[in-house]
């Protein structure tokens, strides 16, 4: 799975997520990625989110909307993602990761899997990691 979250100078947000799914999936199986509020969510009043991981768990947790809702309470992006992932793990025993930007330009990423490659550019500077 891959994804992107963006906020521009005007505070306008967008997200996108795309995936091939999981190896040996049943034909016709659809995961979280194309589901609004699960695989992605964007709202200029809050921010934008893209998720990845165990699709069935992410759908049950409505992970992207969960993260956006928590950001809307004023928490920073990383805390909001951690909140969503903790909820998903404790309630559904599911693992994954997410990236998020707030409408104010706060940026965050976190994952409960062993690794997730990520990168962001802010103030013209590139940041990246995988572990």
């Amino acid at each position, binding site marked *: 799975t*891959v994804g*992107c979250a*963006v906020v521009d100078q005007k505070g306008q947000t967008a997200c996108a997520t795309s*995936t091939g799914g999981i190896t*040996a999936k049943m034909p016709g199986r659809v995961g979280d990625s194309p589901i609004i509020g699960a695989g992605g969510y964007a*709202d200029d009043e809050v921010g934008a989110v893209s998720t990845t991981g165990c699709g069935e768990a992410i759908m049950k947790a409505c992970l992207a909307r969960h993260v956006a809702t928590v950001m809307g309470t004023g928490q920073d992006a990383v805390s909001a993602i951690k909140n969503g992932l903790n909820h998903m793990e404790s309630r559904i025993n599911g693992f994954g990761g997410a990236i998020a930007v707030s409408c104010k330009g706060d940026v965050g990423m976190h994952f409960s899997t062993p690794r997730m490659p990520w*990168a962001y*550019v802010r103030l013209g500077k590139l940041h990246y990691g995988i572990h």
Partner: protein
Amino acid sequence: MVEPVVIVHGGAWAVPERLWSDSVDGVKTAALHGYEILRKGGSAVDVAEAAVISLEDNPVFDAGTGSVLTFDEQVEMDAIIMNGTTMEAGAVAAIRNIPNPVKVARLVMEKTPHVMLAGEGANKFAAQYGINEVDKDLLITPYAKEELAEYKKYTNAVYCLFNKTDNAKQMGHD
């Protein structure tokens, strides 16, 4: 004014060490590509789409070229795009043999009153806008084939052990 940010990911999983370098290079390239479009005045939606296309075109990632295979050895992909300003969204599910499903998702968002198209209907819709299916072999990597073969070999081995009672499935054998 807000300080603009573009962030991308390449999937949360147990990425093996041999893919670490290529995976990080891929997300760096996508983030920089998106930021360049943003710098040139592209919209947030333009940036999200372009960054994901960059990732879909990179065979190291499970999306577009490099997608993993279904049990039937097919390529079925899902994608979404959402505009936070208008709250419009578009998505495709189980679309087959399209290099960039996110492009079709954007077309669903902008050209239809719907939010999601799935399966054969999604492919037909894409074709109406000149996005035709390609030979699936163009999207399938050797790694995807190996993964599926390994899965089937392992599954067969486990289920053979429990063939008489089919307990393996009942047990949710790991």
